[in-house]
């Protein structure tokens, strides 16, 4: 029988080993922006409170944004966005959880084109998406992520009122930029 001490020892080793080499990068102030490009009106909504985690060991990407922090520069439009379109009281977050298809090997000083594959959830609807982007390893402890993808509002049951067809684009361009630190 393996003694209790041995089990404890191994568990401790595993625990320290994981923590010592943990390749977990995080941010709490990433930038997220959407661009609505309709025929007569173009506007953006921005937030600098994108929360994110990249774990290179487990090849895990996890990002979320409190949609209440998105600002389009017009207060009433923000309220309509929260109240009528995104329904942030019911669905406060936009979330992405996935992995990097090319693997997580990124030498310091290099920029790598990556493809993130995973689940994107907004307005209570979850869909598999593929997001192209770049990861730049500034140093052992810092990475910069840039990515952009398109969100078709219809896919997420976000209704566009027909009367105001010009106000909101059917397809929103989402761009994120985040500096993650270990």
């Amino acid at each position, binding site marked *: 029988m393996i003694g209790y001490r041995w089990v404890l020892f191994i568990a*401790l080793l595993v625990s320290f080993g994981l923590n010592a080499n943990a390749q977990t990068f995080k941010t709490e102030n990433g930038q997220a922006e959407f661009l609505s490009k309709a025929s007569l009106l173009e506007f953006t909504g921005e937030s600098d409170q994108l929360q994110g985690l990249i774990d290179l060991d487990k090849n895990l990407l996890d990002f979320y944004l409190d949609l209440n922090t998105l600002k389009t520069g017009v207060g009433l439009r923000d309220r309509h966005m929260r109240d*009528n379109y995104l329904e942030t009281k019911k669905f406060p977050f936009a979330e992405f959880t996935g992995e990097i298809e090319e693997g997580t090997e990124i030498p310091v000083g290099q920029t790598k084109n990556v493809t993130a594959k995973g689940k994107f959830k907004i307005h209570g609807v979850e869909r598999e998406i593929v997001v192209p982007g770049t990861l730049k390893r500034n140093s052992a402890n810092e990475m910069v992520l840039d990515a952009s993808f398109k969100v078709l509002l219809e896919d997420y049951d976000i209704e566009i*009122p027909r009367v105001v067809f010009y106000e909101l684009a059917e397809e929103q361009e989402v761009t994120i930029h985040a500096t993650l630190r270990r």
Partner: protein
Amino acid sequence: MNPKFFLKSLILTAVLVSAFSDFVFAQLERRLASETQEVELIFHAPRHLNLLTVEPLDEGTLHFAIMHTFGTIDSGIRNLYGIDNGANIQFSFEYAFSNKFSLGAARSSRDKFYNLFGRYHILKQTQDDKMPFSLSFMGAAGINTNDYGFLMENAPSASERSSFAAQLMVGRKFTDRISFQLSPTMAYFVDPRPEYFIQGSQNLYLALGFSGKFKITGKTSLTAQYIPNLNNDLRSNLGFGVDVEAGGHVFQMYFVTSPYLNEQYLLAGGNGVPGEEFRLGFNVNRVFATGKRR
């Protein structure tokens, strides 16, 4: 149980949990950026039928409302249900100096009445119900600029043409669909003359406004208002209609018993019999953002 074994088990469990917690709790915990969210859009616009609401304006924005009430609908199809009888029109501009305070000016065609008003938002309802309602205050001072030359030396002076109003607004969004507002209101006419387009002859008018909104879709609501008078026997104001948001505008169409659109005149009578003497009312609300554009 052997206490030593128990202790060992406990330590072992703790270490194992810490070792593997990374796998189990790998995702970030979803947390809201701000714990208390203010309740928004209790009403569609700063106006709800004829009354002002607790709905604030953002700092630096200008709210423009053009409001009409037509003739009574009992005049029939020949007069297109009162539309031919000409409208009482009010233009209203309100500018927000902060998220809590705004000043406005309005002009109604009946009695060529100019009204200056201010709104101050004292409390905001929050989603966690720590603050269960929004509270705002409105104060107004207006002057009747009609030509009373025919009264010769009896024509009213500027002060005799003046009237004032004060209103508290207590609003609450009960559910995503249902909002209510209670508005205790007073109006004071310095010299309520029969030549003015008012019915009452007293100086002070007290009333309690009820405003209700029932949201049908994200952009459309049924609306209602009832303003019973508290210190006189004048007929009370009753109205109901629909609010439609479209393209940054809020259109408000309603049936109402009064032709008046400002607080002073609303309280001083002139209401028709509900049902027979409803008037068609129509407001267009628009908010303009001023200052820097992002």
